């Protein structure tokens, strides 16, 4: 049976970009704005751009916070989506979904913020990075980050190493945008489809 992938629709996601990328891979994805619309989904993509606090408020209003936590299939959080899956964020001093126990911090120091552009990945692990070479460049745009942690399946470095990708049970998070990261990004999305 063909699998059904859905994208969390909560007005803070770069939905068109994710859908375009999946279409290029020959995969269709529907949208889910309510827990009911998640019932027939096998996999979930949770994109996000913008501010953490208003995004979380919309998720809570839609009842999607609990629905994402309870989802039994693979979930892929992208950028803000990944950060919202963490325990807490310094952005708006808020609680996250708590799927990943880590905390999200703001970049500090003598740096251009946002961390914007193409940076390379290292210490790649697991099925999401199958066929992706060490030091592949992917596109980042973020002002907050998850520090390096044991659950990291990819690291990146700005002024310090940080978690570029994480997995915990069936949940995956990517700090970069695979849908905007050329060939390696498309490979990562294909790997998620193939999980």
């Amino acid at each position, binding site marked *: 049976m063909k699998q059904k992938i859905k994208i969390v629709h909560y007005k803070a996601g770069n939905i068109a970009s994710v859908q375009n990328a999946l279409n290029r891979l020959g995969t269709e994805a529907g949208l889910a704005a309510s827990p009911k619309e998640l019932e027939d989904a096998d996999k979930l993509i949770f994109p996000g751009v913008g501010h953490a606090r208003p995004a979380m408020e919309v998720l809570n209003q839609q009842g999607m916070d609990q629905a994402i936590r309870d989802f039994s299939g693979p979930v892929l959080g992208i950028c803000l989506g990944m950060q919202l899956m963490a325990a807490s964020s310094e952005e708006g001093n808020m609680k996250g979904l708590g799927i990943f126990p880590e905390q999200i911090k703001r970049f500090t120091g003598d740096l*251009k913020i946002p961390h914007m552009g*193409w940076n390379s990945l290292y210490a790649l692990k697991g099925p999401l990075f199958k066929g992706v070479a060490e030091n592949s460049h992917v596109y980042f745009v973020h002002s907050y980050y998850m520090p390096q942690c044991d659950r990291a399946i990819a690291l990146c470095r700005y002024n310090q190493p940080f978690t570029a990708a994480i997995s915990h049970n069936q949940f995956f998070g990517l700090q970069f945008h695979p849908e905007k990261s*050329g060939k390696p990004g498309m490979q990562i999305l294909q790997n998620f489809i193939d999980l």
Partner: protein
Amino acid sequence: MPMLTKRIIPCLDIKEGRTVKGVSFGNLRDAGDPVELAARYSDEGADELTLLDITATLEGRTTFLRVVEEVAAATSIPFTVGGGIGSEAEVEKLLSKGADKVSVNTAALRDPALITRLSDAFGNQCVVVAIDAKLINGRWQVVSHAGTRLTDIDATKWATEVCDRGAGEILLTSFTADGSRKGFSLDITSAVATAVPVPVIASGGAGIPAHFLDVFTQGRADAALAAGIFHYGVIGIPEVKTFLKNQNIPVRL
């Protein structure tokens, strides 16, 4: 060691659905189909794209939205759209068509609070403020309305202000160097890049690969934008990037 790379960004000026390019914002020449160009640049290693709508008509606007949609479908790299954007509703529409960032210029000069409204609504990562600067008697002043009106605003001061108001990136174009192919304006680029906490894209004047090296070293730019030299095949993106790599500038190849 992994590090953030310097970005090379081709810019497509779009008028009535076609790519055009002029000198100091005038004398337009046709430079091809924007969707084909965008796909080609993406394949050649462009790190981002910028699409500027330079049509003034309503029909042109609709055509531009279609171009944005088609570019989003045809590429897997980020792109910024700009040209005449002045409201949250317009930004929402462009983002829903697949744009990643928007750039505002004249509208931000007229209504600086727009920057904060856009940043609050969509996040500062998606708000690029475009600043066109012209050298007048030794002072870099901001020009508006596609370079047709000179203001009394100091370019570096304005750059600092727009960042305080929520800009996530600055697209700094030297009106003085634009189209000259004699090199970027390094002094103003360096002044702005040093003054602001966000990334700065330098634009205007690219002619040879060494100009890119200069703007990343002396100019302290995070990214460099060019149009004509790429459209007309004067130099290719791979050529620029290979040159930069050989000069120890971090680039994505």
